[in-house]
């Protein structure tokens, strides 16, 4: 039918015009970043010096100790935060499903609460709490992970909830228990392996959030990657911009590769996870 093919053609033209226009909008500032890092001394000519410096790990750590410190802190936080989050959430959510179904609404409410409390507000309230943390255990940057866990709660909750919905935890754990497994074995050898995808995506979201976090670290005067970039932006902007661009490209490559792996929808970001429609409860 010619009407149908004309419609398809019109739709294709519309698609490409829209996508091209927005790609220009998205790419121009990034090209601006790239061009800035390639500028020679005094804004004349082109040079790869910035990127050469960035690629040279020993030189970076020698000349930019702040960047090294911030990077290491962020990496450490990106390891600790998902770990604490998993240790806290997976057993609790499994336990609530098995033994305390009446509490599931409460746990969900608590986990989604941080969506209503912006990070800047959390900082205000956390100040006295952290005064105690520092007093009791010292003021290492790594304690920021405790606050970051709260920030990732909503996203991690939705990921893990979707994963738990997909498996029959009760039958699995009853089977394991009747074969003599301890509760620890049930968690470690039965529930966790079945939640692999959900655990991975919850951890990935946590890592992404931790690496991009600025508000809490900066107001608590702790140095993570973003704070180091912010401070470096004043003295050596080129390196700072290059780090920003590199981390963006890295994030895109990881997400794009992940969209080809596994069955979940491509590029499901933090927020998409939140909007995953929940299956009807009253299915027979």
């Amino acid at each position, binding site marked *: 039918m010619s009407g149908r093919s004309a419609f398809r053609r019109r739709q294709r033209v519309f698609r490409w015009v829209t996508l091209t226009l*927005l790609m220009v909008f998205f790419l121009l500032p990034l090209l601006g970043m790239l061009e800035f890092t390639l500028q020679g001394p005094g804004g004349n000519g082109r040079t790869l010096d910035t990127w050469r410096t960035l690629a040279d790990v020993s030189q970076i750590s020698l000349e930019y100790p702040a960047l090294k410190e911030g990077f290491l802190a962020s990496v450490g936080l990106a390891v600790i935060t998902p770990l604490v989050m998993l240790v806290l959430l997976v057993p609790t959510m499994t336990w609530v499903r098995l033994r305390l179904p009446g509490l599931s609404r409460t746990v969900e409410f*608590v986990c989604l609460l941080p969506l209503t409390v912006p990070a800047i507000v959390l900082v205000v309230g956390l100040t006295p709490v952290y005064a105690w943390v520092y007093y009791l255990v010292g003021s290492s940057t790594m304690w920021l992970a405790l606050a970051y866990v709260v920030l990732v709660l909503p996203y991690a909750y939705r990921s893990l909830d979707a994963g738990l919905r997909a498996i029959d935890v009760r039958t699995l754990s009853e089977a394991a228990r009747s074969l003599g497994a301890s509760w620890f074995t049930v968690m470690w050898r039965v529930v966790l392996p079945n939640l692999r995808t959900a655990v991975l995506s919850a951890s990935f979201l946590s890592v992404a959030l931790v690496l991009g976090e600025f508000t809490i670290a900066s107001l608590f005067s702790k140095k993570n990657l973003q704070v180091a970039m912010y401070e470096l932006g004043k003295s050596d902007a080129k390196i700072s911009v290059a780090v920003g661009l590199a981390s963006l490209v890295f*994030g895109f490559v990881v997400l794009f590769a992940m969209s080809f792996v596994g069955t979940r929808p491509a590029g499901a970001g933090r927020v998409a996870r939140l909007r995953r429609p929940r299956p009807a409860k009253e299915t027979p």
Partner: protein
Amino acid sequence: MADTASVRPAGALRRLRPSGALAGVVPFFAYTTVFLLIPTLVVVIGAFLDGDNRPTLGNVSALTQPAVVRGLVQSVVLSAVTALGGAVIGGVLAYAVSTARPGSVTQRFFTSLCGVLAQFGGVALAFAFIASFSAQGLLSVLLSEVGMSTGGGLWLYEWDRGLMLVYLYFQIPLMLIVFLPAVEGLRPQWREATETLGGTTWTYWRRVAGPILLPSFVGATLLLFTNAFSAYSTAKALVPQANPLLPLQIGSSLSSEVILGQENIGKAMAFEMVVVVAVVMALYAWLDKRSGRWMSR
């Protein structure tokens, strides 16, 4: 999919004492009490206490100071404008992406790109725009070659022009991610049915697709609003000195130890933010429930 775990009564395990079962959730509630509930209470209660911990309404009435009111108004306007703009542009983008073949490289590319850009806010984003629009920046040079001046790029640091443009840079991708599932829920059969009944493309959008998408669209717009309203780092990196927005004012009230009692005004401002976000989130939850009814498959 039947969720058997949650509908089956807990008969098999009920013989165990409930107190033992409750012990399993103690760590979770202890943690969230210390790091979420106590901080929230500190803000809410602190908003109504003075420097000597006596109850007062002074902090709340301090919210009527012209500077604070301006911060709130500018925050709301900035969030509303970028939420609406981002929703409309991002909505069109989401529809364009949805017309590509499902699972095609185009779809994967744009969803991944937007997934990254939606979280790109912050220091690096501010740098991207500063690098592009500063006097020697790429875009300034390009624009001056076609005869348009960016005026030295100073407008970039103003909340109503620069910040809006910068915020759109993460609002549009966020809209794509939030809105794409709704657009993908549109069935081609609905359009065919409209055409069979003699409807035009306009009829289809006006009478079929529009009403179906409206709740999701409004819900996504509200989400974008809270996203912009809560954002701190982008604005902080772009305009480090001035405090045109409420989050920036809270931030500076925290770091300034000069004026005594200022701290509790910061708590009052934080409380004000929570109230605004809570209202919007309640609206969002209500709409999400409604749109869920439409989009259920």
